[in-house]
């Protein structure tokens, strides 16, 4: 059995599955039940400064994108940070941590961008014996209008400044949660590292309006006929999160920095992908909000079984395995030539590959009078669209042409050596091959 125990910036947990700072972690009752269900750690719902807590809307806080059978594909929320008093949250955190010493308990914090505010809250958080803190520089709605959340995360200088305060007034690990609502995710990560942060976590939610009510002309979720952008999360955002994680994992300035992966983690496989792209653990929210805490059983058993199958003994053996294979487009091998192949035995003759290729791509699929579909190798650019639209898995595959074979489309012989855009004759800035 693979060992799922993880050590993330010195914080150990029995598995790499943490619940993200969000409604599921807003109070003791939930967190105790989450630990009972098997979650390795919890990032407590974001704490605000002492004083009257924030208030939430009293109408709907969530909007969603559904599949045909109401499968929840993407979730949007306009909920703010915890609306419970700071003291209550701190007392509960201390009690839970005392009872669950083997689980990670992280305090998420969002207070104004003033040194005094951080200096005031950090010692109190430390008293709870929480394992570390996560700075919420990510929430894109509500709090950002008040100069917090993503308003901080979008200004690298602020990130660095606040992280320095935190490292000055708090002696346990500091994780910076990043907003994806920014042009270059590497900059805030770099700022966090420069400030001394122990890790980054990403992504927080993405600015979103899930839908428009075409009767009332209100965005959804609608509060008395009006809507505000919320934060988008769930399965739909995973590809965006994976890309941002990979950028931080491979950028020179941030390489090796611990990353807690967040964004649409729904199954063990999603988690394994985040870990392979450099995450030391993952945080989950929407999947738990959709299905309840019990999903962690599937995640843990699935990850463990896969690791056993692949011969990985520890989670750390997997971390970053795919990072070396993430590269810039310009370094992709242009001598790698493939052609689509349709398995006629598997084909159910729906014709979707034909429609997609004929209407929108390269007219590289032929249809016979009997509706048999075949690839025209002299037209196929191997774009993969037919593979993606085919409803039968593995019916259409991309077959690699071997060196020495001729590509019927270009008439050129496939070369063994790799060659990319940097040396391509059509590239005005090409460097001559040596």
């Amino acid at each position, binding site marked *: 059995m693979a060992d799922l125990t993880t050590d993330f910036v010195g914080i150990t947990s029995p598995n790499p599955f943490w619940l993200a700072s969000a409604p599921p972690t807003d109070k003791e009752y939930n967190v105790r039940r989450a630990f009972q269900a098997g979650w390795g750690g919890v990032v407590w719902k974001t704490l605000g400064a002492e004083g009257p807590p924030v208030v939430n809307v009293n109408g709907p806080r969530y909007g969603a994108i559904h599949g045909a059978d109401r499968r929840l594909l993407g979730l949007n929320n306009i909920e703010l940070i915890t609306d419970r008093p700071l003291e209550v949250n701190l007392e509960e955190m201390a009690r839970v941590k005392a009872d669950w010493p083997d689980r990670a308990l992280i305090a998420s914090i969002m207070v104004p961008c003033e040194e005094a505010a951080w200096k005031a809250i950090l010692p109190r958080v430390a008293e709870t014996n929480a394992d570390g803190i996560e700075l919420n520089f990510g929430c894109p709605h509500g709090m950002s209008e008040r100069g917090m959340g993503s308003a901080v995360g979008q200004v690298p200088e602020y990130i660095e400044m606040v992280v320095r305060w935190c490292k000055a007034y708090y002696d346990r690990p500091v994780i910076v949660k990043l907003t994806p609502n920014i042009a270059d995710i590497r900059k805030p990560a770099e700022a966090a590292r420069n400030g001394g942060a122990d890790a980054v976590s990403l992504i927080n939610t993405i600015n979103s309006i899930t839908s428009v009510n075409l009767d009332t002309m209100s965005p959804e979720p609608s509060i008395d006929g009006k809507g505000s952008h919320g934060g988008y999360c769930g399965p739909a955002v995973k590809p965006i999160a994976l890309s941002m994680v990979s950028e931080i994992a491979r950028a020179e300035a941030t390489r090796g920095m611990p990353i807690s992966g967040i964004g649409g983690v729904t199954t063990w496989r999603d988690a394994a992908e985040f870990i392979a792209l450099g995450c030391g653990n993952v945080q989950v929210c929407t999947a738990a909000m959709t299905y309840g805490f019990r999903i962690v059983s599937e995640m843990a058993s699935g990850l463990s079984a896969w690791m056993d199958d692949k011969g990985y003994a520890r989670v750390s053996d997997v971390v970053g395995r795919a990072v070396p294979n993430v590269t810039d487009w310009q370094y992709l091998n242009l001598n790698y030539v493939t052609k689509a192949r349709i398995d006629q035995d598997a084909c159910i003759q729906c*014709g*979707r590959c034909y429609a997609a290729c004929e209407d929108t791509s390269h007219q590289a699929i032929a*249809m016979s009078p009997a509706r048999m579909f075949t690839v025209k190798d002299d037209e196929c650019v191997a774009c993969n669209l037919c593979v993606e639209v085919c409803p039968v898995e593995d019916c259409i595959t991309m077959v690699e042409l071997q060196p020495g074979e001729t590509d019927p489309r270009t008439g050129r012989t496939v070369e063994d050596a790799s060659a990319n855009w940097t040396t391509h004759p059509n590239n005005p800035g090409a460097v001559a091959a040596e």
Partner: protein
Amino acid sequence: MADSYTPGIAAHRLEAEQIALNFADLHPPLDAHEAAVAADRCYFCYDAPCVTACPTAIDIPLFIRQISTGQSDEAGRTILGQNVLGGMCARVCPTEDLCEGACVREAAEGKPVEIGRLQRHATDTLMARQDHPFGRAPETGHRVAVVGAGPAGLACAHRLAMRGHAVTLYDAKDKPGGLNEFGIAAYKSTDGFAQAEVDWLLQIGGIALEPGRALGRDLTLDGLTAEFDAVFLGVGLAGVNALEAAGTDRDGVQDAVGFIAALRQADDLSALPVGRNVVVIGGGMTAIDAAVQSRLLGAETVTVAYRRGRGRMGASRYEQDLATSSGVRILENAQPRAILGNGAVQQIELEYTADDGTGLKGTGETLRLPADQVFKAIGQTLTLAAGLEADGAKIRVDARGRTSAPRVWAGGDCTPGDDLTVVAVAQGRDAAEDIHAELTGAARAVTGARIGDAART
């Protein structure tokens, strides 16, 4: 009150509540969510096999996509624009042999997209509206007689009315609908749908219905051609084939079509008499419909006796399974030899058959079944003798539905082709388009599937 064991032919074999349950909708309609989920299974195939398999060439992927995007009304328009009796076809089509049989998911998983039920969802939704979705072109001044208000005649009349012609729609019966009204199993067309569909269809206007007027009795073809610019015959098959066996004159020996018609017109099904032991002779849809409904009325035993093997039956495999799951026994390779009894039928003697390649022959081995009621369902025949050229036992028509007589078209069961509602609709519709082209000189409308034509050439 009688029960299933009461000898002879008796009414009230089952409680009214049980009868109501037995004759409830065979395929209850999908609600909006069920329809969305069912629609999501459609792959939106290119040049879809289901469309090619549909005699009326409904654009099935399009209407299913319209359902999936919350536009069931538009889906209904897509269907009814090709097949104005799409509501009935959704209920009675042997989809397992047509669209659903051709569905690529049938090939892939043995579980096709539920096209029939989705079609019903869409047509029910649109027809529940008060307005009629089709309008009429300006009056052309042409008058067309349509004889027979069954599926072929209704489809023809509606399309002619759409094109601006004035239609007089005759029917021999006192009620329009043809086999939709008198010939389909009750559990396939519940809540008076056949009548409601005709009422809905006539909303287009321009169609004068003349019930109780039969060709050959009240009307002549010469008279019609003299009075109208064109005539369409959709008279169906009014005759019933005779059973070649001794004793067919005994009480309790009936035509299955008459039994079904009576059943469809009955206000109180529990009052309908049925035998304790029923034997149905035949292998087509009519045989199955009569047999299943006999069971549903409370007959103790029902046997369908067919002279060939099950694979040769006119009824689809699905219909056969429906029968057997209703408790009907299908006795294959058996033909009737004698109907025995003293006045009323008591037994039927059947002889097993074999086909050694030189034709079907009796083997000499016989069996007897108790029978209080014997239904003949060995096919219907054309009875019209209007001087038209025949094709076998039917009216000869060309690809456009034209008969040997000038300005006379025909379609539906009285012409060659499968005797299906959906085929009749296609023939009626296409004849109407040809009549329209002939009368006005307009180009003939293309009504068939043509998405993949360009790719095939």
